[in-house]
């Protein structure tokens, strides 16, 4: 997914000299081709994330369109005030490409985990928050981001995800959610890489002659209110699955929406996320998700109990 993000940025930069790539001491060789072909549009800065955001803001104030790429946990937690003031208050078209969404950096421990990016950024005015499910959607979102004149945060998954968004029209507005599996009564609503799990679980249920729909929300903020309210109002039960703390993320966004627009539907919602605490568990993303009950088998069993 990250490779695709960088590839799309380079492609777009080749057609628009105002597009800049700004990295923060990323791995050797990242975008070497872009560096060679478009040296003025490739900026590799130091491990100075607070500066990085202000720097991008200064460039954007002069008409540039910067894409800033580094580890998500550093972008959100360390640079909160820079994002708030330098980007959001000025409402500048700077896109943050945040590596290591959710539990991607499981082996590296809590300093690198990113279970709280949506919750941290969600209260900032003007910002738009995305979590693509695969490389294809990453490409669409990066291209779409160029039509949005405000700060954007894009969560990047582990990479190598199976392409599951190929049924979504490439022309669909990136702010809109999509139904990948239709079902009236029971639905999973999810975002980012967890869409993969949601589709697999839906298939498992189908094998057991039970039907559950899958709705993908690539844009956490602003959330696609009308479509989600419509789906939830028709459903008997809705399961929100997210690789994020269960508080503050997609689930909370939907609860906020319902409490504002349709209180009666609140009782339909179950959120399967990560309990809000620190964990002394490492290993791999797969192991950590299993520990949180967010692997396919655990999710299947948790949802099955609610049928």
């Amino acid at each position, binding site marked *: 997914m990250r490779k695709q993000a960088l590839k799309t940025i380079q492609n777009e930069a080749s057609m628009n000299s105002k597009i800049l790539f700004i990295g923060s001491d990323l791995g050797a060789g990242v975008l070497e081709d872009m560096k060679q072909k478009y040296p*003025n549009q490739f*900026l590799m*800065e*130091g491990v*100075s994330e*607070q*500066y*990085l*955001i*202000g*720097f*991008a*803001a*200064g*460039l*954007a*104030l*002069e*008409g*540039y369109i910067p894409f800033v790429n580094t580890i998500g946990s550093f972008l959100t937690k360390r640079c909160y*005030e*820079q994002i708030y*003031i*330098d980007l959001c*208050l*000025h409402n500048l078209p700077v896109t943050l490409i945040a590596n290591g969404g959710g539990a991607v950096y499981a082996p590296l421990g809590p300093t690198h985990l990113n279970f709280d990016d949506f919750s941290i950024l969600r209260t900032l005015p003007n910002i738009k928050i995305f979590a693509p499910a695969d490389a294809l959607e990453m490409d669409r979102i990066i291209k779409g981001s160029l039509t949005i004149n405000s700060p954007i945060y894009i969560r990047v998954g582990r990479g190598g995800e199976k392409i599951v968004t190929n049924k979504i029209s490439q022309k669909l507005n990136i702010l809109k959610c999509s139904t990948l599996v239709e079902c009236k009564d029971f639905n999973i609503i999810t975002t980012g890489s967890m869409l993969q799990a949601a589709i697999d679980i839906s298939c498992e249920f189908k094998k057991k002659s039970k039907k559950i729909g899958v709705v993908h929300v690539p844009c956490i903020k602003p959330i696609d209110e009308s479509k989600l309210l419509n789906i939830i109002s028709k459903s008997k039960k809705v399961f929100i699955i997210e690789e994020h703390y269960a508080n503050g993320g997609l689930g909370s966004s939907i609860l906020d929406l319902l409490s504002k627009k349709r209180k009666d539907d609140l009782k339909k919602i179950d959120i399967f996320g990560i309990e809000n605490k620190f964990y002394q568990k490492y290993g791999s993303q797969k192991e950590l998700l299993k520990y949180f009950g967010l692997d396919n088998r655990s999710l299947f069993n948790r949802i099955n109990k609610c049928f």
Partner: protein
Amino acid sequence: MKLQDFNHRCKTIRRMIIEMISVNNRGHYGSAMSLVELFVYLYDEFLNYNPKKINLSSRDRLILSKGHGCLVLYSILADKGFFPKKELKNFQKFNSMLPGHPEIHIPGVEASTGSLGHGLSVGVGMAKALKLNNNKSKVLVILGDGELNEGSIWEAALHASKHKLDNLFVIIDYNRLQSYGKNKYVCPLEPLGKKWSSFGFHVSEFDGHDYKSIKKILRKNIDSYEKPCLFISNSIKGKGYEVSENNPLWHHKNFESEEIKLLKKEFLK
């Protein structure tokens, strides 16, 4: 400009600051008064700008990173016609265009500031953009000495030097007092010039209240040093009124009516 005229201009700006403070009997008085002579020089003789065409790409950009010094910025912008002087009478009021820290919607303000440590990074980005555009304009960033306690300033300094931004001019309002008290007690800065020099800046200093001293260093056609420039403006916090000079209690102040009367008597006489 004749020295007499310069002094008269500074007096005018100080009067405007007093008028603004008396709107709500509050404001960052000391932090603005230490900048008056510098700002009069910058806007009267140094910077290139057109108040009627505020987005002109050929303008010089000034970022007041120590945003709490906004009383002097607003006064000079109004004085130069960026917005009507009558706006000063609404300072910090509910529907005012002039809050207690500068925001970008104010004509002549290049970046919203207030929380310390932001302006230099933004200025480095602007200066880099101007370089990419082959635009010869200058970027000035005004820092407070207390602001130098922020780590982000030094992150930006490292990169300004990396990018060889000879169009970036950083000025430190070195009045040696921060909010609580003396820098040397709260967070010592010396050797200040050597620190910036070691970060790759061309460093020079002037007396921030002396026209000739400022002019000697900040010439209109300043030499290119092929690296960013750092100017230490040695100043006096609360300059212009004996009671307020070098007095940390006057950094930000809620004024008694009697104090406002005394200030008016001092500056409006």
